[in-house]
């Protein structure tokens, strides 16, 4: 049995779904944030897989790998900013619980 592209895509998709589920199910913002990272990485996995699959001149498609690189960088920046906001929120409200931050509604 050989590994096909779909194997990777399936793993990536499941990882994405798990992350997504985490966002929907968890109530701690920090963990939600981790789950978002999972989703981004799921995308990375399929990108790399596609990059390996769509060979250009016998080499992986480096466009995609550069994109993965960018995604990782952006994710890091996002984490930094996001955590800063979460910290600021915690300082203001003493909570990281999504159910406690619903003063803006309707």
């Amino acid at each position, binding site marked *: 049995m050989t590994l096909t*592209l779909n194997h990777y895509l399936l793993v990536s998709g499941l990882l994405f779904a798990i992350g997504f589920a985490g966002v929907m199910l968890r109530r701690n913002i920090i963990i939600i944030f981790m789950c978002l990272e999972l989703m981004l990485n799921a995308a990375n996995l399929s990108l790399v897989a596609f990059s390996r699959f769509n060979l250009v001149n016998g080499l992986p498609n480096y466009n995609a790998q550069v994109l993965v690189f960018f995604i990782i960088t952006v994710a890091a920046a996002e984490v930094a900013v996001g955590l800063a906001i979460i910290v600021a929120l915690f300082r203001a409200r003493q909570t990281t619980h999504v159910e406690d931050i619903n003063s803006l509604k309707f």
Partner: protein
Amino acid sequence: MSPILFYLFAAMTLAFAIAVVANRNPVASALSLVVSFLGLAALFVGLDAYFIAVIQVLVYAGAVMVLFLFIIMLLNIQAEERRKINLPAYAGGGLVTAAFVAQLWVVLQKYDLGKTAFAPLAEKHVDDVRNVGNTLFSTHNLPFQVIGVLILVATIGVVVLSKRELK
């Protein structure tokens, strides 16, 4: 990469991903995330993307996770207190996830090209870092510069948002 290794690392990635979601303790979640990412890095290696795999370990497992843990510690967040479990929300979220997975499954079934194996590379050992670097700094310079701006902005943001209040 041999299928066995693939299954191993895939299982590891997915299992610890589930652990991230399932763990009540944030620290445990964070650590699970690290393990999951390590598995992912291994999968990258299996796809001949060595540079990405290394970056993955360095940036994610190294920097990002430390940041997470650091914040968790800083805010002293304990395990999620046992609040009333919102069953409809859980059921709803679960259903949506299940539906998404089902859709993904069907899509993959219909993706015939994806059922073929990977073609071998032209040469056994590719100069991965050089190629990525070359692409990044030559043709892909513009997005790279924009990323620089992005990081600048993020830096300012973090400074602004978390600088101490001077009393």
